[in-house]
């Protein structure tokens, strides 16, 4: 009885007011970012009194600042964003907070506390997990090829730092670092260069599954053994297929936090308590559980 009352109140309160949500997305040219937007859109679409506006900053900090300023100026109730620069973005988000707009940061944080809630998977933790998994599998003197994402970006920084913090404890394991900017094409170019220069490695740790896809393309071309230890992050459709085929060892999910972001908005509307910072757990996908878990995109 009490529950029903609460539900009724909840529904009434949900439908009593129109809410505007602005999503200042970094870029839509990236599958993961697009998927993040789709997650938010899908979950918000269940609530008819909430309208969502998505702005594409085309990977430009100035555009994202301008987009957030647009939301502020037009009296949005919520701003969801994944800040491109943690310092510059904090300036504009401070304006939003001052104006009473709830700021939900998903997967990227800022340098100040000018936000309502910050939901993110822990890249450092994922990297550590990946490193421990690889260290377990590799015996003796081995070399790991680490493929990095965009230089200076938070995921890249944490996925490198977390990984290396584990590996440095194992002197037998050597790490070769190459950069492919989260892009298949760059990964292909990079991998061709590795083979051309006859650089030897025993396992691959890639900051993203998409870069591993590029790597496999080159391996196919050079007829290389694809059953070697290959660890990726994100868990995309290509990774699922590769894991089931045995062409990729594992992938760590990296949730978009879109669903969680929308859940926080609903909680705020319902005046429920929320956490300032929320870490989303990553799951390791192996050949055993891949069948039952849907990839991110």
């Amino acid at each position, binding site marked *: 009885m009490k529950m029903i009352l609460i539900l009724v109140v909840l529904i009434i309160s949900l439908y009593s007011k129109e809410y505007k949500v602005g999503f200042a997305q970094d870029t839509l040219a990236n599958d993961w970012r697009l998927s993040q937007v789709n997650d938010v859109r899908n979950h918000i679409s269940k609530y008819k009194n909430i309208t969502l506006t998505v702005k594409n900053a085309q990977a430009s*900090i*100035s555009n994202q*600042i*301008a*987009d957030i*300023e647009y939301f502020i*100026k037009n009296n949005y109730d919520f701003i969801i964003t994944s800040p491109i620069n943690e*310092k*510059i973005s904090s300036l504009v988000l401070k304006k939003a907070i001052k104006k009473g707009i709830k700021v939900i940061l998903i997967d990227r944080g800022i340098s100040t506390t000018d936000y309502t809630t910050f939901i993110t998977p822990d890249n450092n933790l994922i990297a550590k997990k990946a490193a421990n998994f690889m260290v377990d599998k590799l015996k003796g003197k081995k070399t790991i090829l680490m493929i990095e994402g965009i230089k200076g970006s938070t995921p890249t920084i944490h996925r490198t730092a977390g990984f290396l913090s584990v590996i440095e404890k194992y002197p037998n394991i050597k790490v070769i670092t190459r950069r492919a900017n989260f892009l298949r094409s760059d990964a292909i170019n990079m991998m061709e260069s590795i083979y051309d220069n006859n650089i030897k490695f025993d396992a691959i740790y890639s900051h993203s599954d998409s870069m591993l896809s590029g790597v496999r393309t080159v391996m196919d071309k050079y007829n290389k053994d694809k059953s070697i230890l290959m660890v990726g992050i994100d868990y995309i459709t290509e990774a699922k297929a590769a894991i089931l085929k045995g062409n990729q060892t594992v992938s760590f999910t990296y949730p978009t936090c879109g669903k969680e972001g929308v859940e926080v908005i609903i909680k705020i509307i319902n005046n429920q308590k929320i956490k300032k910072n929320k870490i989303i757990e990553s799951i390791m996908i192996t050949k055993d559980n891949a069948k039952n878990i849907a990839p991110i995109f």
Partner: protein
Amino acid sequence: MRLNLRLKLLILMAVTIVITLLVNSYFHYNNVLQEYRKNAFISTNNDYKTITYKINSFSQNLLNLSNQIVNDNNVKSITNLISNYEKKNDYNKIIFNYEKKRLLNLISQQIKSKKNISFAVFDKDLNPIIFNRSKDGKVLNGIISYNKKAEFINIKTGESSDIPYFMSIKKNSDKVDIGLDKNGFGLVYAQKIYLDNKLVGYLRIKEVFTKSTINLFVDNLNNKFSFLTKDFLLGNFFDIDKEYIKEHSTLVTDIHSIDDIAENERYSFHIHYIKALDDEKLYLVSTFDKDKLDSKIDLLKKNLMLAILISFIISFIISIYFFKVTILNPISKLDNGIQNLKKQKYNIIKLDTNDEFSDIADEFNILTKNLKDSFSKIEESKSFIKNIVDTAPVRVFWKDIDNKYLGANKLFLHDADLEDESEIIGKTDWELKWKSQAQSYIDDDNFVMNSKKEKLKFEETQSFDNNIVIKLITSKVPLINKNGDVIGVLGIYDDVTEQRAMEQMLYQREQQIAEQTKMASMGEMIGNIAHQWRQPLSVISTASSGLQLEKENDILSDEQFNKYCEAINRNAQYLSKTIDDFKNFIKGDRLKRVFNLSENIHSSLNLVDGSIKKYDINLILNFDDKLEIDGYSNELTQCFINIFNNSKDAFIDYLDKIESKLLFISTSKVDDTVIITIKDNAGGIPNDILPKIYEPYFTTKHMSQGTGLGLHMTYNMIVDGMGGGIDIHNTSYEYQGEKYNGVEVIISLPM
């Protein structure tokens, strides 16, 4: 007249055209110079408009480019970022400089290949952010940041002196200016950059005109132009005293009329003050050469003369054509119509126009039609008369007062052995085949003409060389005109030669018939005489025999003797009288006298008494004894006898069919006419015979009985001889209760 009209019209036209043109050209020439100056003014003004139009199109392009840049979202957002976040975050210059570089690249990409375009972007406080300067094909650009002294520096060089001269901007400057900088003149445009209606910065963009651009402005214009400043002169006109222009430019900054034109010995100048940018004055100097003006005026004069000549010729031709079409042609057609009318051709005039001429033509056509109708009626009656004259069964001719033939009909021509009337016109009788009688004919003609009296139906003979003589009945009448003057003579004659011969023959035949009739009558008479005489002779014979017998027997008494003698004497006298009657009849004296009709009829009946008695004919007489006639009694007697004999002969034929033969004779008087009616009951005359009864030698009787001349003679004697009338017809009537058919003869005679 036709030539005159054309000539007058043409001269009038030509004079009008020439006067018009001369007056026109006088005024026109007087205005030529002024006009040309005005035209020159208009021409340079038009050039000025063309130049400003071209500059405007450049300016529009620049404006479009500027609009494109300031409306670019990236430009907006970057300018916003720099304007609003940079100073507070100067610890993160890399990001800002990265964004500035993006901005420089973004705008450079939009400008693309336009090398003569420079630009700079300022933040909202008018601090420069980036610049791109183009000079002589080289591009100098940079992004601007602060050094430690908070001075603007070019981050490439670290120097502030490289920041270009034009990197100054006035607030609120938001339009295109034609301006100058150290490098020349061009278009400068400053535009504000807004993000969500919030001012975030400024764009200043400049297009420096290259030489080829300037040439593009001044090429293909009517006049030469220069852009003039205190430092340089650009364009295609350089023969100019800068000082002079500057001097005048202060006076003439805007040209509104021809009076604003400045002039020196060789040139007229228009000085347009175009624009001052940064307090620098720019003038557009247009000019035209006075020599060129003079030569143009000469050309204008020539052209004017040529135009006058050509327009004269053209208008002359047009006028001729116009007059030909609108006046001469209709007049010519009307004239032709009149000429045709003279020749008696009644053509309808057709005019395609709808003016007075067509009205005249319509009237003319109506008149022509009327005339044609009248003339054809005249012709008709003429030909009718001619036909009458030609077909009249008489000879007709007419002569003038000089006895020359004017015309004649066909019969006349035939007599003259000519075929066509034209052969006789103008000839005299001396030239014709009857020239031997010419004098007498001419005498007759002259008599008629001189006396003005007609000479009618006189008979004359005409003899020819071959001894043929013909008889003519001629009439001549004077021809008199309406003034009463004799103008000729009309003659009509008929050739009666044959007629006369026929008459002669008929006459002889009539005589013959009369003789025959008489002879026949005499035969009858003798029969009658014999019959009449029989009884007296018998009485005489009886008396004489009685005398003789009584004498012999001596019984003759004196009384008896006297009685016998008296009888003999009485009968002898009767015989004598009878002889007298016959003698009178036979003698046939044709003496017109007054006689008693009753006596005449009794006398006639006496002559046929024998027949009456012989055939037992009952006479029913009803006479008016007082009637007297002035005529030929003998002939009337003969008529009675003829009529009686016809009745008698009919009785003979009809003898068995009737019981009593009746002959009714009555006389009466109606007005001045005596009517004698003779009626029998002998059955009448068959109808098919009735119309022929007067014809000579027609008889129904046996040849031994009739001559066929009886009624013919009777008719002649009554109708022709005594001027009376005779009607013979069948009749039906009742007498004493009996019905009878017979013939009734009614004779009417004048008293």
